[in-house]
Every structure is written in C-alpha cells, then in structure tokens.
C-alpha cells in the first residue's frame, strides 16, 4: 500500500469572479479564507507570551524604559541609592505581568540584570546571563521530550534581549563587544543607546555609525539578522531598520503638558524631551520594532533558530553529560566549550540540507 504522492498539480482558483474559473460561478466560494479568522479566535483565546530581558549597567534607565514601553508600572524603579548596597553578584530578577489591550492578552515577563558591569572586575559577567537563557531553553526542551506532554508548553525562553549602551559618544567598550559577541549567537539582541538626551543629534549619528562599524568588525549579528530576511519586502523593511540600529532612546514615565497635550517626557531646565516625538528620540522606532511589527518574528526566530541550535548541541552532547535525575543542569555555557552553532541560514521557506550531515 503505497500512497502515490503526485507532484502537486495546481488547481485553478475557486474565485467566482475571474473569467477562467472552472465549473460553477455561483457556487459560493469555498471559504478557505475563513481559516484566518479561526486562527485569530484561537490566538485571542490562548493569549500571547513575550519574554524580554534588559541588560546594561545600573543607572542607564532600564527599568524606566520597560515602564515606558509597556505604559504601566511593570517595574517599580528602585534607584539603587542610599541604604541599598549594590549587589555583589549579578542577580537576575524576573517579573511576570498580564496586560490586556482590546481583547488581546499578553503575558509579559521582564528579566532585569542589576549588577551587570558594575563590579571592578567584570570578567565573565555574561556567564550568569547566558546560563539563565540556556536554562530557559533547557526547561522547554525537557517539557518537549516528555512522554505525556502538556497541550501548551509554557514558553519562558527569552525572546529578545535589549542591550543598553552607555552614551559615551566614542565607540563600543570592550565589555560591550565581549557581551554582544557571545549573546548574539544565543538570543535576539537589540542594542540601544541609553540616555540619549545627553548627546546632540550629530553626536548621536556619529556614535551610531561608529557602533555599526564596531558591530561589523566584530561580526556581531544583531536583530533583525540579515540571513533571515524572507522576501523582498522584508529585506527593504529590515534594511531600513538596520540602518537606524542602535536606536537612541530616552525613557520617561512622567507626563507633562506640552502645547496643551499630555505627553510622556523628561523635564529639564532647558526644555522637555518628548519620548514619543521622533525628532527628539527614537523610542517610537524601538517600540514599533519590539511590539507592533516584529514581536511575532522575534518569537519565531527564537523558536526556530536559537532554540533549535541549542537543542542540536544538547542532544549531541548528551552522552558526555553525567547522568542525573530529570533536569540536567547545564553549566553556564562558555562559548569555548560549545562548538559554535551554525545559524541555520536558509531555514525559513527553503529546505535545509543540513540534515544530510547527520
């Protein structure tokens, strides 16, 4: 019993309006489009999940930025000041909230990294972060390979990591370069210039160009990655974005009156910096990228590329790891140990021939 699989013979469309339609013109359309609505209903019922991680030195406005992005008090921004000692080790804090807009529920998890880059010796300060990211992948993998698995595996993997570059105006520091190099292989990284209100427009441009130059020299592939552009529209859209990365952003959670309107901004003696004004800062670009246009894309790349890379390494190395109960804790992976995963270049829309290797 061999199901003969013939090469797909394209059948003519079932649109009743075109002249070349087959048989009946007044037979109602088949209704395949309705599946889109079905998808929407299903998605709205299930809700969405998004996990974002903010990395940067203290005082760069990470918590404020998150609050501004999601227009709510996601983080109670605690400026580490008097009485609160700076953490001696890098700690990661995660907070989960459910926000709802027009019937769409979003379960948002924000992971903060206080203490990053604050010590005198910042050697290997990226290890705990990489360990955390890999731990989330591990968690998902363990759920996926269970015999009886859940209907919907809770997704705690980090979809996007926003890296805050201090506005020195010169170029990327060695710490930045080291960190970005390592992280770009495991997670989608979006670098931003923090506290951009301390730079003038020209300084911003020059800083941005220098940073882009640095990224190119060190082969750091930030989001949106060039190799994942599917079609020409994506390419055009994404190259515009790539031209503006890193965005120069300003975060603010206070509202002020400007010309009769109530806007979010920072008030200084010499003026009010409006966060949502494109002429003042590029916060709207960041927000659009993260939320309005590329959120699903971020999740897809995390799932299809980064998670798969992790899975490949993990399953290949499983015979090296010691036996243990259920969860095998992966030590924070230093890139020297891991053979650097080949990013699956032609992964979307085209067939990947890398399976032949195995």
């Amino acid at each position: 019993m061999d199901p003969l699989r013939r090469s797909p013979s394209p059948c003519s469309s079932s649109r009743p309006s075109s002249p070349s339609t087959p048989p009946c013109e007044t037979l109602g359309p088949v209704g395949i489009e309705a599946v889109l609505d079905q998808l929407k209903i299903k998605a709205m019922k299930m809700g969405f999940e998004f996990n974002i991680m903010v990395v940067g030195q203290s005082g760069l406005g990470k918590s404020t930025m998150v609050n501004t992005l999601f227009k709510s008090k996601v983080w109670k921004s605690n400026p580490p000041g008097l009485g609160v000692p700076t953490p001696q080790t890098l700690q990661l804090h995660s907070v989960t909230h459910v926000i709802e807009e027009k019937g769409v529920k979003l379960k948002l998890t924000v992971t903060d990294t206080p203490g990053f880059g604050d010590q005198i010796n910042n050697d290997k300060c990226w290890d705990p972060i990489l360990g955390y990211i890999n731990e989330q992948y591990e968690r998902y993998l363990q759920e996926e390979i269970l015999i009886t698995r859940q209907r919907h595996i809770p997704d705690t993997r980090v979809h996007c990591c926003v890296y805050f570059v201090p506005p020195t105006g010169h170029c990327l520091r060695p710490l930045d370069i080291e960190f970005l190099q390592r992280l770009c292989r495991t997670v989608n990284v979006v670098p931003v210039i923090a506290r951009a209100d301390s730079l003038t427009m020209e300084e911003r441009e020059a800083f941005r160009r220098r940073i882009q130059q640095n990224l190119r020299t060190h082969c750091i592939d930030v989001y949106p990655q060039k190799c994942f552009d599917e079609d020409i529209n994506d390419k055009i859209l994404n190259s515009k974005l790539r031209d503006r990365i890193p965005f120069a952003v300003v975060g603010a959670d206070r509202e002020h009156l400007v010309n009769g309107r109530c806007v979010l901004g920072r008030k200084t003696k010499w003026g009010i910096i409006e966060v949502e004004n494109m002429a003042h800062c590029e916060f709207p670009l960041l927000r659009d990228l993260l939320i309005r246009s590329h959120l699903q894309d971020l999740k897809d790349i995390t799932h299809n590329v980064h998670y798969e890379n992790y899975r490949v390494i993990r399953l290949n190395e499983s015979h090296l790891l010691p036996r243990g109960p259920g969860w095998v804790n992966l030590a924070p992976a230093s890139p020297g140990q891991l053979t650097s995963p080949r990013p699956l270049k032609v992964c979307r829309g085209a067939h990947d021939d890398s399976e032949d290797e195995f």
Partner: protein
Amino acid sequence: MAATDVARQVGEGCRTVPLAGHVGFDSLPDQLVNKSVSQGFCFNILCVGETGLGKSTLMDTLFNTKFEGEPATHTQPGVQLRSNTYDLQESNVGLKLTIVSTVGFGDQINKEDSYKPIVEFIDAQFEAYLQEELKIRRVLHTYHDSRIHVCLYFIAPTGHSLKSLDLVTMKKLDSKVNIIPIIAKADAISKSELTKFKIKITSELVSNGVQIYQFPTDDESVAEINGTMNAHLPFAVIGSTEELKIGNKMMRARQYPWGTVQVENEAHCDFVKLREMLIRVNMEDLREQTHTRHYELYRRCKLEEMGFKDTDPDSKPFSLQETYEAKRNEFLGELQKKEEEMRQMFVQRVKEKEAELKEAEKELHEKFDRLKKLHQDEKKKLEDKKKSLDDEVNAFKQRKTAAELLQSQGSQAGGSQTLKRDKEKKNFF
C-alpha cells in the same frame, strides 16, 4: 561572580497591570496571521467508503474544482489508498490540500482486513512526523505535515442501519483520526427515511462506543452553530459535477425525470452544512485536535513501546537522555557480543579448513611416494630386461663369430662340397 540568583517574582500569581495608554500589541493576532499566511496552510482529508459512493465527486463539489483521477473498478484485490496533493489559492490564502481516498474498500469477498491498510497509512503519517520531531537537526516549521486531519466516512444509503464493516472500521479509526460520518448519495433516501436512518446510525455509533468528532462548543462565537450542527450529524450529502440552469442561475445539481436535486439547497441535502463545518468554521480546530490529541496519543504509545518512560519505578523523573544512553549501551553491548561470536566462528572455520588442507597435503605426499616407488620398480624391470637383452646380443655375437669361423674353415672343404652339390643337382636334371 558566583552562581546566578534568579528571583522570579510572579507578582502574586501574575497580576494584571492596567495600561496607561495605547501600547500597540493588539496587532499581535494580525502579526500571527500574516506569518501563517506567508507560510501557507495544509489540510489533509481522508475519504473512506465503498467504491461508487461518490467520494471523488464530493471532493470536487466541496472545493469547487475538478480534481484529476479516474473512477476505480470493483476488481481490486485489496484495499489501497490513493493520495494526491493540490495547491489551492483563494484571495491571498494558499492551501496545500491532500486528499486520500480508499480504493477497493468493501469490494472483496473477505473484508476482515479491510481496515488494516487505512490504519497503517494513518500511523505511517504520524510516524513520519514523529521521526522528524525526534531528529537532531530538524526543520519542523517547513515540514509538510501529512497527518490526516479529518476522515470523512461515507455510509451507503441503505436506509436501514450501519453495516458491520462500517462499525468495525470506524471503531478502529476513532482513536486515530477525527471521524465525520456522512451519508453519501443522499438523493436515494426520502426525507422521512432519512430522519429514521440518522437516528439509527447515531444510536448504533453510541451503543458501540464509536467516538466521532464533535464540533467544539467551548468558544462562544461558534458554540451555537456548532451545537446545532452536532445534532444534524451524520450529514446527508449529494455531490455533483454537472451544472444546470435553474431559474436564471447556474448551479450544481442532479437532474432526474421527476425533478432536480440542487446541491446547495439546504432543504435538499446537508452539503452546505458540511462545507460550513468542515472548512469555514472548524478547519483549525480539526488540525489542532489531530496534533494535540491523536498525534500525542500515538507518540506516547510509540515512545512507551520503545521503552522510554517518564518516571522509573522509584518515581524519580527519568530523563530521555538517560534512557537513550541506556539503550545505546545495550545496543553497543549486543553489537560487541555479536562481533565476538562472529570472530570465534571465523577462527573455527579457519582451523577446520587448515586441518583439511593438511590432510590433503599428506595424501598428496603419499601418492607422490607411491608413484616414485612404482617408477623405480619399472625402471629396475626395464634395466633387467635390458641386461638380459644385452646378454642375448652378446651370446648371439659370439655364436656369430664362431659360426663365421666355422664357415671360413668349411668354405675350403665346402667349396668342393658345393661343387658336388651342384653336380648332383645337374645330374639330377
């Protein structure tokens, strides 16, 4: 930098935070939908039914197009499945449709094994997907999903009850695929007969414990329509590839001397309901059920069969890697054992062969000795003969010389003798 301290504050069980303005993630469903549209959808239908019940015609009518294929004969020796894949496009949505139909179902004299090829086919599709999922380097998001999403079971319009073949087949299939039973060629049954038939069928299905697909009623937007449709199962459908002019419109219909049956007329048959339920309302749910229920069940059974467990007897969670490793070591051990065995066998064979060869060698040597001896004997004999011959020759020579001597002596005296003899001879004459 010591170990990480991840403090996960779930915020009192994930509290909802009010938004102070428009963030913009309400476009998320649209983003998702756009992604799906660019990837395309795929839908796989399996049509099970006896030959001649109108399976291909119904598919043509359902998708409003003419799929290729010739009608099957009744002389098939066994049940086979024929599968074809088509690319349909409606506005901007592309659908990869695969239609699988049975060929020769119900034609054999002995129908005991008729359901087996179908079950095997469905399992093969699950298996292919499972293999892809278990691969180390996999491309699941571009994988062409060939798992059967819905099975349309065609019931012959006898008007009485289900055939036993139908019951047996449906019972075997209900845990593997979503079954929607339909009454084919429903224009052969009258309305009153149809209601009785439907009731009979549903009661038989219930009493035999066959789980047919129920349209989902948990979501408010579709609960109502699905609920009413559930009551109309099984649908009585008619398919037609001909178009007739009725009134002032062209529509699909079947013409009889006593009237015309219109396919899209709800009073005539349930075709519209079927199309509504199958495609417009529940296509996504069918796919989801296939993936989350039927496929997971298959996967669970398969993995348990292979020996994987989630928890070992001490109910400590087992990791899949451990079982993999254990199996792998087991397998390697077996391999080694087999290798040893083969090696030993090889050594033994070599020894045997050596012994044989040695024996043969010995034999050859003996033969050689024997022949040599024979040869020597012969030689000796010949030499003896030669010697005797030589002796004779010598003796002969001696006699010859003696005779010659005698002759020379006697020739003087013999001269006269000869004369005398001659005289005697002359005198004689």
